[in-house]
């Protein structure tokens, strides 16, 4: 029973990782950039949600939507200001810029509102628990899980059924050929940032509701974990990010369940290094060799 309980916790945590990982993977797929600032977009989403709930008295779903919109705008802004000028620069320059943007968002937030943490009101969602076969699942956890799943399905629909989704896939596969189709590559890249960031914003609100405490540096560790999830699933591959997120969440919960909760973060990084060494293309990826 304990095991199943941990499994449920793991899936909840994993679905948050998955939501963040989707943004990493989509952005990487289209511009081959590890957007280090993505974890901080997640943090901003958590705060936007928090203020929407506390100051504007909005309910869960309106707050979620607001956070998603705010983060989408933030994502596009970051892309246009910091990354677009670097599209032909070296990968290292782009990576360092991303680190810079990440630090700027973190400490900019602290500068503006201070470093003190906030707590999401626990009354935001009805707190009932459901017991199934001896496993307690809070209705919150259930709602959060459902929200994540709905968002992921929505994303799949966008990517596969809409014009912009097809454009995104085309650009990430072959940007030059996409231009020959009449696709505006710049706009498509911005759209990718917008969608990925909106998902991170949603993850931020969900995280707040689930784990209560939020603070300006909260994005770092989940951001890194989500990145690991993306690598685990095969970076650039959307279903890979979802599976990677869930797998990582479950692994962490099991490690905690076995009584090694202090090693949880370490295990995630060990997974990362093992994956990079033995299967750098991830669970779902294909190996590509450099052209000479």
């Amino acid at each position, binding site marked *: 029973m304990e095991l199943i309980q941990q499994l449920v916790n793991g899936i909840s945590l994993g679905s948050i990782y998955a939501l963040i990982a989707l943004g990493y993977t989509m952005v990487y797929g289209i511009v*081959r950039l*590890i957007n280090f600032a993505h974890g901080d977009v997640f943090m901003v989403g958590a705060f936007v949600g928090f203020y929407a709930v506390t100051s504007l008295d909005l309910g869960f779903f309106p707050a979620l939507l607001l956070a998603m919109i705010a983060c989408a705008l933030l994502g596009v802004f970051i892309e246009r200001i*910091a990354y677009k*000028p*670097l599209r032909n*620069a*070296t*990968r*290292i*320059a*782009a*990576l*360092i*810029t991303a*680190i*810079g*943007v*990440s*630090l*700027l968002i*973190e*400490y*900019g937030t*602290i*500068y503006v509102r201070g*470093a003190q943490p906030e707590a999401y009101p626990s009354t935001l969602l009805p707190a009932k628990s459901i017991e199934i076969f001896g496993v307690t699942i809070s209705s919150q956890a259930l709602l959060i899980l459902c929200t994540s799943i709905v968002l992921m399905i929505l994303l799949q629909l966008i990517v596969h059924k809409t014009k912009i989704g097809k454009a995104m896939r085309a650009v990430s596969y072959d940007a030059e050929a996409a231009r020959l189709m009449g696709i505006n590559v710049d706009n498509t890249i911005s759209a990718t940032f917008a969608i990925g960031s909106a998902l991170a914003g949603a993850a931020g609100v969900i995280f707040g509701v689930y784990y209560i405490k939020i603070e300006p540096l909260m994005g770092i560790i989940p951001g*890194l974990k989500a*990145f*690991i999830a993306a*690598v685990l699933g095969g970076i650039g591959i959307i279903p890979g990010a979802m599976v990677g997120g869930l797998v990582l969440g479950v692994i962490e919960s099991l490690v905690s369940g076995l009584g090694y909760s*202090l*090693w949880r*973060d*370490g295990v995630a*990084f*060990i997974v*990362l*290094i093992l994956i*990079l*060494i033995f299967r*750098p293309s991830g669970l779902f990826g294909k190996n590509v060799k*450099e052209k*000479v």
Partner: protein
Amino acid sequence: MTAFKRINGFWLSIVLALVFFAVVQLLISGGMLNSFYINTLFFMAINIILAVSLHLIIGITGQFSIGHAGFLAVGAYASAIMTMKLQMPFALALLVGGVAAAVAGLLIGIPTLRLKGDYLAIATLGFGEIVRIILLNVEYVGGASGMTVTHLTTWPWVFFCLLMTIIVIANFTNSTHGRACISIREDEIAADSMGINTTYYKVTAFVIGSFFAGIAGGLYAHNFYIIQPTNFGFLKSFDILIFVVLGGLGSMSGAVIAAILLTVVSTFLQDYPETRMIIYSIVLILVMLYRPKGLLGTQELTSFFRLRRAVGGKQNDNKHTVA
């Protein structure tokens, strides 16, 4: 141009360095520098060691490692164990700190240096985090509350280690071995096809860089009264990275200058950590956007003087001896 002249230039630099050392030592023992300045000076030197050691890995060999604080931590804890738990002399502790970090560098370098670019960066970042988490969980070194350490770091030690670091890394760089590393940075496939054993040199540069980061760790640990795993998070790694990037990837003097400048800036902004980070990050972004090669690019400070001398006759030979 001749070997004789180069040896001469080398000794000249050594003499200048020793004069600098003696002056500072006199100021310290004469009580003319207060502890704030002394401390800043120590920090500066430790940061220069870190910057130069990472410069060898990133700037010279082109291997994008962003987990350097991990080696700093290994060195710090290994040397602290030597002095605090085993009652060994400080000199031995520093050496053990360096060796422990070098071994860690070897262990992590052999498997991960096959990775390229972003992947290597992430793997090294992960390594740094793993080191921190291990330290956090090992009771022998105090877990989260850390280890108390005696203050043993003195100006002669700091200076000697700094000098060694610069001499070793500059001399390595200015040899056929350093050229092999640079050729890997410039084009790994071409280097391979020129008969360079690229894996060997990548790992070698990584191990040398880790060794000096470990030495810096020993100095760092014994400059405090306590060390904790939180001192070695990836923000620390980014700090070191910023020295190298701002100075100019591939320029040792650039890394040194950046380390000096940024140490001064952070000392002044000590009480405003957010402001410091905001300034850091904005500078980092602007430099990448407008001067992606950093302050000096791959040039060395010495080459600018040489250029001036070269006017009217001899060519600039672009050599950077110890300066």
